[in-house]
């Protein structure tokens, strides 16, 4: 009924006509505390800042909940010596009344998860209170190198997720639920591997050959992924096929086709795994600042960052981006505005697939050096990354980095502690779960915050319609009459 399709989504908290909006009842006293709160509130309202603050709050809460989980699990397990003992201080020789041992140390777990992923930048035993107690001010560990192998793992994961996240974000912004980034990425990776293997003998040696081969690989990955993305796009546009179904199914097709081709035609006879022969070293993306064995290159990450900026520019500053955003928000208005709905669907799906395909190409040319079946689920993680980022290309960069830290940190936790990998997975899931529910924290902030801007709430309570005496209406204070002043 309500004629406001899109805004239902935003003001979704008011389906009944009577959702009570609690009028925050703090009186008029304008204390310093109130003003500070108001300032914080305004800060929290600015969308980018808000997003950031919410993420921090989510992180903190997830660590708190995670700590409880780790402790509980540590109680349930049996071990020789407790990794963590909960007790109270015993000054003046007071007797110890209470002491409880846990098999897992939550501090160590989260320390490994986050700082381990960055290669231990912080000094042993350094805490925020250390300088106050007379310790060193500089928290960084002696001999810490930013470009360490664990950092390479983090950035490697981040890089691929930037591409897959971006691929998903474009489609989502166009209002298309592209679940098929995984398939597009797999076929892009296969295409890259095969084309580079084919072209390697013809390429000149040295840097020129590398540039040519890498460019070819990326281009083939983009084209193959793009075509594979355009297929469900065209099916949606011209045959009204639901893209969720088609893209999910095409994922299976892609994985199956890749396996079949590699297993039957281009399999490396010297290997147990179903994989192609490795591409020559000269065809790999040069590591730049890192060791070749780190499997990470700033060239690829740079390309990812460039694409993030490019996609942002495309969406916000180009006519095509305007079409895409309009179609995604309000298809009827897009059609009214002269947007060719079918073409926009196909183009944005092709673009999404192409970026996913490049992700696959980088997976082959930076990490593996060959195509191997059983590609990790980067495409599906890309969906989470994109949603985490609110489908905003700039946010994708940050979300991918958070994901990269969690992925890389998980392995560190497993090496450094006795915590089972499943529990680490649970902690990872918790963090993402909390970060992905900003509305919960908004509610929380409203509950404890000051009298929030009544206008903003009223809008939500009013069926998305600020009719009539609308608040901003005369914000300039002019208050002129209703008549036009001709």
């Amino acid at each position, binding site marked *: 009924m309500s004629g406001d399709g899109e805004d239902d989504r935003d003001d979704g908290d008011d389906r009944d006509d009577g959702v009570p909006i609690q009028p925050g009842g703090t009186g008029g006293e304008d204390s310093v505390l109130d003003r500070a709160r108001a300032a914080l509130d305004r800060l929290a309202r600015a969308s980018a800042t808000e997003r950031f603050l919410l993420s921090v709050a989510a992180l903190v809460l997830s660590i708190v909940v995670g700590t409880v989980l780790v402790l509980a699990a540590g109680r349930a397990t049996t071990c020789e010596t407790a990794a963590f003992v909960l007790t109270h201080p015993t000054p003046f020789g007071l007797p110890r009344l209470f002491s409880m041992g846990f098999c897992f140390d939550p501090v160590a777990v989260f320390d490994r998860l986050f700082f381990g992923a960055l290669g231990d930048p912080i000094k042993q035993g350094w805490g925020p209170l250390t300088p106050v107690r007379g310790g060193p001010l500089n928290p960084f560990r002696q001999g810490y190198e930013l470009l360490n192998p664990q950092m390479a793992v983090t950035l490697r994961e981040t890089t691929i997720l930037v591409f897959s996240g971006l691929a998903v974000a474009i489609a989502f912004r166009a209002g298309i639920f592209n679940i098929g980034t995984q398939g597009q990425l797999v076929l892009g990776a296969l295409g890259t591997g095969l084309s580079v293997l084919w072209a390697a003998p013809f390429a000149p040696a040295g840097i020129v050959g590398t540039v040519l081969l890498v460019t070819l690989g990326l281009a083939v990955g983009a084209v193959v992924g793009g075509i594979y993305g355009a297929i469900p796009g065209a099916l949606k546009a011209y045959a009204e096929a639901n893209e969720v179904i088609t893209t999910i199914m095409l994922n299976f097709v892609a994985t199956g086709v890749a396996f079949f081709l590699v297993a039957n035609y281009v399999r490396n006879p010297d290997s147990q795994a179903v994989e192609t022969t490795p591409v020559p070293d000269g065809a790999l993306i040069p590591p730049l600042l890192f060791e070749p064995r780190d499997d990470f290159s700033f060239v690829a990450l740079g390309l990812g960052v460039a694409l993030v900026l490019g996609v942002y520019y495309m969406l916000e500053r180009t006519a095509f981006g305007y079409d895409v955003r309009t179609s995604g928000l309000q298809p009827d*208005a897009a059609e009214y505005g002269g947007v060719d709905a079918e073409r926009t669907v196909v183009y944005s799906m092709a673009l999404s697939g192409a970026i996913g395909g490049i992700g696959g190409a980088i997976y082959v040319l930076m990490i593996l050096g060959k195509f191997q079946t059983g590609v990790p689920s980067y495409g599906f993680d890309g969906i989470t990354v994109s949603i985490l980022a609110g489908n905003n290309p700039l946010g994708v960069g940050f979300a991918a980095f958070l994901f990269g830290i969690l992925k890389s940190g998980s392995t560190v936790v497993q090496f450094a502690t006795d915590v089972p990998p499943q529990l680490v997975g649970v902690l990872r899931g918790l963090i993402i779960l909390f970060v992905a529910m900003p509305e919960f924290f908004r509610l929380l902030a409203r509950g404890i915050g000051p009298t929030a801007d009544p206008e903003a709430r009223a809008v939500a309570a009013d*069926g998305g319609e600020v009719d009539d005496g609308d608040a901003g209406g005369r914000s300039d204070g002019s208050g002129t009459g*209703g008549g036009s002043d001709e």
Partner: protein
Amino acid sequence: MSRAVHLDGITKRFPGVVANDDVDLAVERGTVHALLGENGAGKTTLMNVLYGLYEPTSGRVVVDGEEREFDSPRDAIDAGVGMIHQHFMLVDPMTVAENITLGNEPRKWGGLTVDRERARREVVDLSERYGFDVDPDARIEDVSVGVQQRVEILKALYRGADVLVLDEPTAVLTPQEVEDLFEVFDELTDQGKTIVFITHKLGEAMHAADEITVLRDGKNVGTVEADGTTREELARMMVGREVLLEVEARAGEAGDPVLDVADVSVRDERGVTVVDGVSFDVHAGEVFGIAGVDGNGQAELVEAITGMRRPESGRVRFEDEDVTDWSRRRRIDAGMAYVPEDRQERGLVMAFDLVGNGVLGSQHTPPYARGGRMDWAAAREHAESIIEEYDVRPPDPDAAARALSGGNQQKFVVGREFARDPALLVATHPTRGVDIGSTEFIRERMLDLRSAGVGVLLVSSKLEEVQGLSDRLAVMHDGDLVAVVDPDSVTEEELGLLMAGEYPEGFDPGAAAEPPDPGDVESRRAGEARTDGEGR
């Protein structure tokens, strides 16, 4: 008589704005009270205070002689105040009875399940008591807007409302449905209910209300008896100056045809032919009006002309070119402006700000885009000029379209389309939901465009609008143009009959259509009297 509602000195401040400034409103029990004012006068804010959606900055709310403090609509409902919003809050796939009882369903088996039988019976009883004609088992998505509104009223009554507040209840209704609604008002007040309704239409306020309170700029300008006032007085109170209620006399000079519609048939989504072989043309410098009850194919005909829908058969020619197969974008670029019927679905992207909305339709053409790149600075200037010229409030190009009131949204859409420098303007309900000051302005601008040689196709369900503005007036009924008449000589009764598909006695459609070129317009199915309508 006693006062059902008394708002005493209500002031409502928003940050930086005073939406209501010391407003008094007293409503007697068993009367209909109209709250009249322009868009942005503070009518809805005041009613939201009464309904508990807003907490007043100062002032008292007295219901039934008792001072109340409503924290939420729930409190207001408990006190017997029900509100029907402009946009209905119904669940489309559920039945009328389910919607009415939603949230207050009678229960059985110890509250475990809904007693559907009893719910249905209660709804039938309720609608019979107030003489409502609604089918309790119909699904909301299948019934007309008028019936949906009645369901909303019944919902409020079911919850025990004694005071009904209706926000712009007539904005979405056809003239006939408006009449029916006012009859419902009579029935309700006879049974002791009290009605407050918001409107910006003078005629309705005078026709339906016992008392009228006029708000302007958040202040109560005065309360008058409906019988003891005149349209001119009310208009002056609303706008604060004299208003021309009649549009100026027409002086159009028609040129060549800009639009030639030949034998166009259109089917809707269900495959039903809703436009059946319609032919007409619109000349440069004339206003061609199409009158008719909503849902007789006007919407689909307009969509076929503007490129939103492909006609089943027939041709559309625009400035000597066959545009039947042209894309929507090509038609926009060729100079076709279009004020759509539904501003919130089509005319605006609700989540975009006004800068983004100002370029909707011209996002690929200079000066707003060059080489595929948007020039947001030019777009901003454009939006600002529309805002200024059409008095869009708030005058903030960064405001999201959804934050504007309906009337201001409409003003912005109209401003954008008028600024396109079109050869043809297709305007459907261009003044729907717009206050009289702006209505006057929009109509004047439309006539300016016409004088500048633009062909205007005007579709409206407001009879005085099509009649007053058109140079030639066609009447559409059941997918067909039943007659083209001279708007000056035709009477309202004749139009009414034609809209119902009947020909008035002694009416000669061919002879009535005079300027500028009646020969082009055929009157099909002459003599065929059809009273049924496909409906909506």
